[in-house]
């Protein structure tokens, strides 16, 4: 029997792509809006497309903010994608006044005005040394669709870096928690290696 993986149903547009990515890896994806699932489930995915304020209000309405924070604090398997990565941070220039989950002590900023947003397309990413050693990732091309990004490297987290109007954090990782600014579910075989590696390395 295939292992269940819980995907938080944040109402994201392309949830089907995310479900199919896990099915390809032999998981049985289950959408959930239950905070209890987020507390108890073995593996949880936090996807997200949309604004920072809308994402946080979705988590608040589902009563999940503490459950998500706790998964990070207790080092339980959590995979965050795109807005999901940003929601773990303290705040975002996209939605002034909205407090994030806040477990990753950085702020989300807009891309500089000289590059066009939303940033849509494939960009090379490079895992930094500790990340690469521990997760055995190599560099590659990943698909991004975002207008905001994390610029400061969160202390205590390993990162992968990309460059678009300056360097920014393409992914950060610590223990069982991995967050990608890019869309691994849309990044062909390279993206699939991220999902697979996380599912194999975490416990």
């Amino acid at each position, binding site marked *: 029997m295939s292992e269940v993986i819980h995907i938080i149903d944040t109402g994201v*547009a*392309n*949830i*089907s*792509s995310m479900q*199919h*990515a896990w099915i*390809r890896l032999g998981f049985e994806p289950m959408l959930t809006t239950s905070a209890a699932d987020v507390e108890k489930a073995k593996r949880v995915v936090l996807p997200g*497309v*949309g*604004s920072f304020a809308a994402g946080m209000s979705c988590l608040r309405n589902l009563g999940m903010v503490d459950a998500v924070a706790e998964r990070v604090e207790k080092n339980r398997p959590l995979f965050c994608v795109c807005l999901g990565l940003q929601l773990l941070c303290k705040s975002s220039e996209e939605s002034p006044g909205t407090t994030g989950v806040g477990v990753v002590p950085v702020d989300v900023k807009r891309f500089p005005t000289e590059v*066009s947003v*939303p*940033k*849509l*397309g*494939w*960009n*090379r990413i490079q895992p930094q040394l500790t990340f690469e050693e521990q997760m055995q990732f190599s560099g590659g*091309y990943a*698909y*991004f*669709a*975002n*207008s905001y990004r994390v610029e400061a490297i969160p202390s205590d987290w390993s990162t992968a870096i990309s*460059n*678009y109007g300056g360097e920014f954090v393409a992914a950060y990782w610590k223990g069982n928690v991995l967050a990608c600014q890019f*869309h691994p*579910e*849309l*990044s*062909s*075989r390279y*993206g*699939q290696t991220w999902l697979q590696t996380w599912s194999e390395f975490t416990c």
Partner: protein
Amino acid sequence: MLTKRIIPCLDVRDGRVVKGVRFQNLRDAGDPAELAYEYEQQGADELVILDVSATNEGRLAMLETVQQVRNQIAVPLTVGGGIRSVDAARELLRAGADKVSVNTAAVHRPELIQEISNEFGAQCTVVAVDAKRILSTGGWGVFSSSGTRDERKDALQWCHQAQQLGAGEILLTSMDRDGTRTGFDCELLSAAATVVEIPVIASGGANSVRDMLDAFASGAHAVLAASIFHDGCMTVAQVKSELNKNRIPVRQ
């Protein structure tokens, strides 16, 4: 730096890929899911599916086609054709699309762009513009309903308005070049690239890597092609390797 994207396009009617010349004389070009899988293996950066059937049966077949294609591929999938409402867009997104492309309905009711963009985000909202050179003015006009209806609207102004309403990308097809393999309309591309900041996808007329180089030089962020890939003249991998030799950054 972002790479330039190569996007095979599947025009689908009643569950089959078809291709015509200047939107006419459609002929069969294969099974959508099989072609989609093959193109991802070749290195396609995204895929676009356009529903060119007008019937209700065609609509249902389309949802099935989107599901089957999604099942096969892990690159972004844009779906267009007959989307008139946020609900129609949602249905296609649930079936497996990552972005939706609007055309005729948005020309008639531009707020549709805003509605879809507000609901799903600009990254999800593609506006397809079918443009044809107007000899008397030297500009380009917008045509809708699969190119059959002259909207008496300036294509460049429409691109700009679409961006203001929340479009994340413009899929710009030259009707004069569609299926003719005579190269992209580069004048149209560079004019569009100066009026909008969002990515412009060049479409209509691709025949060679040279054409693609010209399109990128004219400001296109991505090129869309159908005939050259369906007919097996070139694979996506061959195109990318040639572009790379010409110092165009591509994902390989």
